[in-house]
């Protein structure tokens, strides 16, 4: 689950990763009066909002509210703007990149850091990205920070700031079951002039030096492992990532993804469902959805699956069940019950293989539903029907 920037920054703050001062608003009038300059940032779960006009600067509250109103009515790459983050404007010296993710191939957390921040990390050349594979049995000890800080060009106090940020970010990553935590850009603010009076005192001579700036997370991208949400009650599931229908089906226990074709699909097992969609495409047919029924062979679960497929308004429905230990007569009952209950008139083609498969197919045929023992013939039949109906 992707968190909005303001949610990610709230976690950063909780874990001691410095973020700009600011607050989130859902209505323009919630923006409070201020002096100086503020950044008005669209909260959307997509990148590139800056180029789309989702980030603006305001120097008084009226301007800020006006901009917020505009931004709140925007759609950025198809995403409605969810909220506005109002933040102090940082004086930026340089932008860096820092992230931690789970690397599937080493099966370990991977830190990526780059002195080229503020752009998509995919566009940064490999030799400018410093990687560190974390051994989770060791974790991120200070030495990890020192090793990366050196490569990033941080010395002295900045190296310490960087190490602290990295250790805190790793703690967040582990404790909040993150798939990804990303700071892009990690901003180095301009250092302040420090004037030191020179000896002898009162001589009027001062030495002007520059104190180092602060490293601050100017943006946040945090992705939380959905399977862990039961232990993070403080995080609500963000609705925006799924379509309303996907959300509905998922809540009912089906793995469901909307696609843009016209063949409704119900299959069992993620791999087989994907293979079914692939096969449809290779046959020139377009799937309307991915629906994995899972391993259960209850009449109701099968029947209810049709609810979500029907809501997607397909022109035909393909059911592909490789039963294994699933009882096919039960599945057949579920399909027949759905046809009756939802008064389905569009073509349904079923592939049914497993325990009691012949019985199940017989029941289906008796109810006017095409039934086959193998996937190929089922899909060929579907193609024939759909081409015939054109």
């Amino acid at each position, binding site marked *: 689950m992707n968190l909005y920037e303001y949610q990610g920054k709230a976690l950063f703050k909780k874990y001691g990763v410095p973020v700009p001062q600011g607050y989130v608003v859902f209505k323009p009038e919630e923006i409070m009066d201020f002096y100086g300059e503020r950044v008005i940032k669209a909260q959307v779960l997509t990148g590139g909002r800056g180029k789309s006009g989702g980030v603006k600067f305001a120097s008084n509250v009226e301007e800020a509210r006006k901009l917020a109103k505009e931004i709140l009515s925007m759609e950025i790459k198809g995403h409605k703007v969810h909220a506005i983050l109002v933040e102090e404007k940082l004086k930026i010296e340089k932008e860096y990149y820092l992230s931690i993710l789970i690397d*599937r191939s080493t099966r370990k957390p991977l830190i990526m850091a780059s002195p080229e921040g503020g752009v998509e990390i*995919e566009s940064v050349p490999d030799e400018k990205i410093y990687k560190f594979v974390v051994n989770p049995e060791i974790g991120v000890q200070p030495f990890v920070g020192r090793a990366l800080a050196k490569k990033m060009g941080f010395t002295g106090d900045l190296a310490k700031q960087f190490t602290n940020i990295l250790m805190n970010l790793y703690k967040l990553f582990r404790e909040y079951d993150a798939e990804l935590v990303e700071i892009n850009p990690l901003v180095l603010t301009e250092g302040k002039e420090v004037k030191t009076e020179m000896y002898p005192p009162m001589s009027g001579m001062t030495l002007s030096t520059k104190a180092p700036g602060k490293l601050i997370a100017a943006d946040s991208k945090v992705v939380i492992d959905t399977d862990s949400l039961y232990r993070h009650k403080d995080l609500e599931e963000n609705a925006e990532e799924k379509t309303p229908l996907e959300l509905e089906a998922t809540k009912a226990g089906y*793995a469901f993804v909307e696609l843009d074709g016209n063949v409704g699909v119900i299959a069992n097992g993620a*791999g087989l469902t994907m293979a079914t*969609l692939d096969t449809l495409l290779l046959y020139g047919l377009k799937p309307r959805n991915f629906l994995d029924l899972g391993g259960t062979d209850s009449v109701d679960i099968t029947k209810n699956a049709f609810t979500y497929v029907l809501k997607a308004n397909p022109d035909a429905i393909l059911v592909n069940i490789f039963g294994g230990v699933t009882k096919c007569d039960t599945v057949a009952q579920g399909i027949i019950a759905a046809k009756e209950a939802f008064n389905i008139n569009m073509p349904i083609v079923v592939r049914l293989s497993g325990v009691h498969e012949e019985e199940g197919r017989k029941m289906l045929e008796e109810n006017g539903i095409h039934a086959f023992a193998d996937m190929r013939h089922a899909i060929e039949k579907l193609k024939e029907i759909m081409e015939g109906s054109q």
Partner: protein
Amino acid sequence: MSVIVDENTKIIVQGITGHQGSFHSGEMIKFGAKVVAGVTPGKGGMKVHDVPVYDTVEETLVHEPDATMITVPAPFVKDAAFEAMYNGIRVVYILTEKVPLHDALDIVTYARSHGHVVIGPNGPGITVPGKTKMGIMPNHIFKKGTVAVASRSGTLTYEIVNALTLNGYGQSTVIGLGGDRITGLNFVDILELFEKDEDTEAIVLVGEIGGTAEEEAAEYIKKYVSKPVVAYIAGRSAPPGKRMGHAGAIITRGKGTAESKIKAFNEAGVPVAEFPWEIPQVLKKVYK
């Protein structure tokens, strides 16, 4: 010789009194597996299919178990896996899906640095036809033979094993690595075992979108695998950024597409079938 488990492997089932644990223990016993004990806290003293049930893994040690099948709900998997490993059980197969990613990370990290083998999470297990079965694959589709199958999915594996059997290709070992982002074994790990396995003459890999396990397998095959390999990849039609049922089946930031995997296999000389049912024909081209 077998891969990971064989006819002598003594198996316990953690969560044996649950719906899945109970049903599949019975099927495993029918297949010939040595299921020596079950564990369900609070249910010690029961019997399931004549198998004694205990409250703790420690109590099952009198049966000298080698492997465990974990069927407990996702929030309890980490505890169950560490209970098994603490008690010295070498092979840990996790059937459960939706195991939190960081729990899998902890389990797999510990296992790999302490000599345990983890199968799964979220996979159908391992079957060695004629010898043993640990997991939920349907008994009737198998036939003893020389083709090893490794897959990231469940039902699709049955589909392909069924096609192999119907076309006369028996199997040496069939393993489901699991559909999650972190699994105990990746294709490279299992290829190493298949290459060494005397009972295996040809290999079928059933991959899917997400991650780079197939690309790494292709590299490994080029260098180290002498036996013929064929593959199928699911998810050609999947849109980016959507989790296609399996937690691991997701294209992120342009990585993990079916095209990339198919290309890698082709470059490694591994033919990739277009349809699941084509696997036997494709296999025929490279293996008797």
